[in-house]
C-alpha cells in the first residue's frame, strides 16, 4: 500500500508541476486572494472548536475568529471552493474542497498545506481501479466454476469501462469535489465527496486511498456529510436518501434503511443521543436507535435544509434556503421557523454567544440575533 502512495505522490507532483507550467492559472495551485470583502464571499463550511470559529468558502477563503475578536483571513495555497472544516484537535484542522483538494493546518489555522489535490486524486483513482482490475483478473483465473468466472467477467467489463473513463478524465482534469472530512484520531480519517468518493488515511493525511468499495453505492450517489457519535460510529450522509453506518471504525459500512428518497445534506447528534438527518424540501428525521429507524418531524418549511447545530440548551437549529432557520425544542421536538433578512441560501449555522448566531451561505458570513417573533 505504501509504495502506491509514494508512487502516486511522485506522479502527482510531476503532473501538478506540468499543469502549473502549462497554464497561466489553475485554481488548485493559485494562492487564495486576500480580499477586503472576504466575509461577503460565498461561504459554505462552518465549524467551532473551543473558542475558535472557522469559516471556509469560495476562492480558497478561510476565516478564523478567536472568541469575540475580528475575523482573520488565512494565507491558503489554493483557490478552489472549500466545502467544510473539521477539527482533529485545537491545532489540527482539515478542510475539504473542490477539485479533490484537502488542506491541513497544524497551527490552529494560521498556515495551511495542500495535502491532496485533484491531479493526485485522479492518479489514485486510476491506480485503485487498475488494482481492482488486477484483483478481478486473478479471481477469474482462480475461479472455481464458470458461473463465478462469468460474474467476475461482468464486473470486469464494468470496471474496464471505469478505467477508460478515468483515463479520459486525466485529460479533462480533476472535476470531483470533496464535501467533508472526519478524523477518528490523529492518524485515521475519512473524506467524502461527489460520485461516491470515500477516501481514507492512516498516516495523519500524508497519503490517501480510495475505499469507496466499502459503501454499497453502485449508483455512485454524492456523499455529502460525515458524522460520528460518542460511541465512535461513523455515518455517511448522502444523496437520494442514502445513509451508511460503520461501527468498526470505518472498516466496513452498512446501508441503513432510509426513511426518505430525497437527498440528505447533513446530520447531527443531539444531547439525548438522537441522530438527526435533514435535507431536501425541509425534510427532517430523527432516530432514537442510532439510525435503525427514523421518524419524520415537521419543520414548517419546504425549503432545503443544508446545515445545523446544537445549541447549549439542547435546541437543534437547522439552516436552509431563502434564509430559513428552524429551531427544534429538544423536548417537544416542535419546530419554530424564522427567516434571515438576507433571504439567501444558508449552508451553516452556529451559536456564537448567547442569542447571537453566525450564519454562512451565499451572503457570506452573516449574523442572526435570536428571534423573538417567528416569521409567518
Amino acid at each position, binding site marked *: 500500500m505504501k509504495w502506491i502512495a509514494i508512487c502516486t505522490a511522485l506522479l502527482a507532483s510531476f503532473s501538478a508541476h506540468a499543469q502549473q507550467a502549462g497554464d*497561466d492559472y489553475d485554481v488548485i495551485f493559485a494562492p487564495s*486572494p486576500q480580499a477586503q470583502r472576504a466575509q461577503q464571499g460565498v461561504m459554505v463550511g462552518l465549524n467551532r472548536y473551543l473558542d475558535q470559529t472557522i469559516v471556509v468558502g469560495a476562492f480558497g477563503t478561510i476565516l478564523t475568529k478567536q472568541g469575540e475578536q475580528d475575523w482573520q483571513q488565512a494565507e491558503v495555497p489554493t483557490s478552489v471552493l472549500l466545502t467544510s472544516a473539521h477539527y482533529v484537535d485545537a491545532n489540527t484542522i482539515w478542510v475539504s474542497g473542490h477539485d479533490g483538494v484537502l488542506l491541513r493546518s497544524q497551527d490552529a489555522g494560521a498556515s495551511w498545506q495542500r495535502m491532496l489535490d485533484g491531479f493526485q486524486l485522479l492518479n489514485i483513482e486510476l491506480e485503485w481501479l487498475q488494482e481492482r482490475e488486477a484483483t478481478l483478473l486473478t479471481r477469474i483465473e482462480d475461479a472455481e466454476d464458470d458461473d463465478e468466472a462469468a460474474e467476475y467477467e461482468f464486473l470486469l467489463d464494468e470496471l474496464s469501462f471505469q478505467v477508460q473513463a478515468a483515463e479520459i478524465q486525466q485529460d479533462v482534469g480533476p472535476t470531483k*469535489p470533496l464535501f467533508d472530512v472526519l478524523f477518528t484520531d490523529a492518524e485515521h480519517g475519512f473524506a467524502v465527496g461527489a460520485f461516491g468518493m470515500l477516501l481514507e488515511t492512516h498516516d495523519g493525511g500524508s497519503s490517501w486511498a480510495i475505499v469507496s468499495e466499502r459503501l454499497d453505492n453502485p449508483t455512485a450517489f454524492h456523499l455529502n456529510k460525515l458524522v460520528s457519535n460518542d460511541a465512535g460510529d461513523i455515518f455517511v450522509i448522502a444523496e437520494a436518501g442514502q445513509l451508511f453506518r460503520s461501527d468498526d471504525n470505518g472498516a466496513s459500512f452498512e446501508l441503513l434503511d432510509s426513511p426518505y428518497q430525497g437527498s440528505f445534506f447533513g446530520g447531527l447528534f443531539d444531547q439525548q443521543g438522537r441522530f438527526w438527518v435533514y435535507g431536501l424540501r425541509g425534510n427532517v428525521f430523527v432516530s432514537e436507535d442510532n439510525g435503525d429507524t427514523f421518524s419524520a418531524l415537521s419543520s414548517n418549511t419546504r425549503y432545503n435544509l443544508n446545515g445545523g447545530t446544537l445549541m447549549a440548551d439542547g435546541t437543534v437549529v437547522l439552516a436552509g434556503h431563502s434564509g430559513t432557520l428552524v429551531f427544534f425544542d429538544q423536548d417537544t421536538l416542535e419546530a419554530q421557523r424564522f427567516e434571515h433578512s438576507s433571504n439567501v441560501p444558508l449552508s451553516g449555522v452556529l451559536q456564537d454567544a448567547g442569542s447571537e448566531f453566525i450564519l454562512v451561505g451565499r451572503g457570506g458570513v452573516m449574523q442572526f440575533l435570536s428571534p423573538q417573533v417567528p416569521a409567518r
Partner: protein
Amino acid sequence: MSDSQVKFSQGRASVAENLLFRFRAGWLVGFAVITAFLLYNAMQVRPDASFNKMIPENHEFIQNFYQYQDDLSALGNAIRVSVETTEGTIFDAEYQDILRQVTDELSYIAGVNRSQIRSIWTPNVRWSEVTEEGFVGGPVIPDSYDGSQESLEQLRQNVLRSGEVGNLVANNFRSALVYVPLSEINPETGEQLDYAEFSQNLERLVREQYSSDTINIQIVGFAKVVGDLIEGANQVGMFFVFAMIITFVMLFLYSRCVRSSLIVLSCSIIAVIWQLGIIHLIGSGINPYSMLVPFLVFAIGVSHGVQIINAVMANRADGADKMLASRYAFRGLYVAGLTALASDAIGFTTLMVIDIAVIKELAIAASIGVAVIVLTNLGLLPILTSYLDVSKRGLQYQESKRHAKHPVVATFTRFATPRWAMGAVAVSLVLAMFGLWKGQYQEIGDLDSGAPELRPDSRYNLDNAFMVENYSASTDIFVVMAETQPGQCIAYNNMALMDRFQWHMENVDGVQAVRSIVYASKMGMAGTNEGNLKWYSVNRDDFVINASISQAPSGLMNQECSMAPIVIYLNDHKAQTLNRVVEEVRAFSTEFPTEELDFLMAAGNAGIEAATNKVIETAQIEMLIWVYSVVIALCLLTFRSIRTVLCIVLPLMFTTIMSQALMATLGIGVKVATLPVIALGVGIGVDYGIYIYSKMREALREGLSLLESYEYALTKTGKAVGFTGLTLAIGVATWIWSPIKFQADMGILLTFMFIWNMLGALILIPALAHLLRVGPKDANKGTDKA
C-alpha cells in the same frame, strides 16, 4: 482732461469701408436674399441627440465597445417601468389587474421588443423548484389565477420561488416592474427608433393613463433619458425668446432709441438665422450642447452691434450726418471688431482638439456663428444705420448724458491710479491664490447620481432613486468584455480566470456586484445539484459547463462565443470610482497575463463615462494651452506689445482660475458640457480687453497719460463694454433654468465668466497697465493728482 469730447482724426476710408458703403444698396439686397435662403434652411434644423456623438469615438474603450455593440444590445437598450401601490402590497387583485394592463400596454408601444418583455404577467417569467422527482416549475402567475385570495397566495409563493424579488418585484413587495427591451431598428419598417415619440408614448399611454391616488408609475432607462433630454431641449427655445425680450429692453434702456435697438436685435437675429441655416446646409443638426451656440451668437452679435450703435450715436451727436456717422463708426471699430471676432472664432476652433463629436459640432457651429457676425453686425448693421439713422429721441438722450460723467467711467477710471491699481492687483492675487487652491478640488466627470444629464430632482432621477432603493440592481454599469478565441468563451480555463476576475472586482471599493456567464454557470451548478452551495463552482468539464448555463439568460455571451460581457454594478459614476475600476481591471490583467483571454474595457454607461473622463482630463490642459496661445498670438499681432498682451491676457487667466474654483465649489465637474465653456469664456472674454485697449492705444498715441487714455477709452467704449457684459450674461443666464442639468451648469459658468471677464477688463487692464508702466513716463507721474 475735463471734457470727454477728445476728437481724433477719423483717418482715411479703408478699401473695406469703401466697398461696403459705395455699394450699400446692392449689399442690402444680397443680405436679404441670403437671409431668406438661410431662413428656409434654418427652419429645417432638427434636434439631434445621438448617443454616439456624446462619447469620444476614437478612445480605446469606445472602439472596443463598438466592436461588440451588437452583441451587447441584449444588456443595453431597455427601459424599466415600475408600478407602485401606495396601499398594501402587490398581492392584491386590483393591483395585479393594473400590472397586467401596463404590461399589455407596453408591449404595443412601437419600438418595444415584444417577445422579450418581462413582468410577472409574462409567460417567460417562471418559478422552479427541486423536488424528489427533479425540477418542477411553471409560470409565476398561476394558471388558475382568478384574483381570489387563494390564487393571490399562490402567486405570492410563486414569486418567492421565482428568484425575481429584487428583480421584477421590489424588495418591499410594494411595487413590481415591467422590463421592456427595445429594438433600435424597427424590424417591420426598418426605421430608427424615435426616442422623442417613444418617450411621449410612455408618458401618455402608461404614466398618465395608470397613475392614480394609489398607483405610481416610475420609468427609467436610456431611452427615457434621451426622450426627456429632447423634451427639455425644446424648452430652450422659450429661453431664446426670453433672452431676446430682455435684451431688447436693455438695449432700449441703454439707447432710449427703439429704432437702433431694433436694428441691433435684427442683425443679431439674422446672424442666428444664418448660423442655423449654414449648420443645416453642411448637414449638421443641433444637439443639446450646440444649442448654446445660437444664444452665444445672438449675445455676441448684440455686444458688437452695441459698440457700433454706440459709435454711430456719438458721431451723430458730434454733428456727422447718418452716412458719415455710420462710416466713421465702421472705420473706428472694424479692426478691433475683426480682431475680437477672429479671436472668438479661432478660440472656438481650438475646441476641435477634443475628440468628442458634440464638442466638435459645437466648435464648428460657434465658429460659423462668429464668422457670420462679422458680416451681419460689422457689415449689415452700419449699412442699416446709414439708411435708417437713429431716432431723435435717442440722440437727445445721448446729448443729455454727454456732459455727465457716466457712472461706469467714474467708477473704473480710478483703477488707473497707483493706489487703486496696487489694491486691485493685490486683491486679485489673493483671490487667484485662493482660486488655484480651490481649483485643485475640481473633479472630472459627472458627480450626481442617476442620469447626470438631468437635474437631481427631475422626475427621471426621482424615479431612478426609487428603483435603486427598491430593487437590487444599480443603474451605474461598467461592462468589461472578456474576449477569447471563437468558441472559447466558456472554455474552462477562461471561465476560471473570469471567475477570479469577478471576485477581484467584487472587492473593489464602489463595486456592488458583478454578473456574467460565470455567475450564471455557478448558479446553474448549485441549481442542478439540488441548490446545494457545496457545488457553487465552475466545473472543469466543458460538458458540465454547457449544462450549467442551459438556463442562463441570453446576452451573457455572443453568438460565436468569442466574448462574454462581465457586468460590474457600481455605487456611483464618480470619476474616482471609475478610475479605481479601470485601474483594478488593468491590475488584474497584469497579474494574470494570458494569451487566451483579454479583459477589454468598456461598455455600459459607467464604462463610457470612464472613457469620456479620460479624454476630457487630457483635453482640458491641451485646450487651455491652445486657446491661450491663439488669444496671445492674435493680441500680439494686433497690438505688437508684450506688455499690452499681458494687460489683456492676465485678467482672462484670472477668470479661468476663478471659474475652476467656482466649479469645485458648486460641485460642477469638468465634462463634455463644461469643457467647451472654459474655452468660450476665454475666447469671448478677450473681446472686452481688445475694445478697451484699442481705444486706450488711440489716446496713448496722442501722448495722453495712462489715466487720461483710460478715461478716454471708458468714455468711448466703457458703457458698451459694461452693457456687453450684461447682455452676454443675460443671454446665457436663462439657461440656468434649463431642465437639463448640463445646460444649467453651462449657464452658470458662462454667466460667471462673462461678468467676471467684464469686471476683470475694466479693473485689471488699467491697473496692470499702470504697474507695467504702459504709457508716457512723464505723463504718468502727473496722474497722481487726478
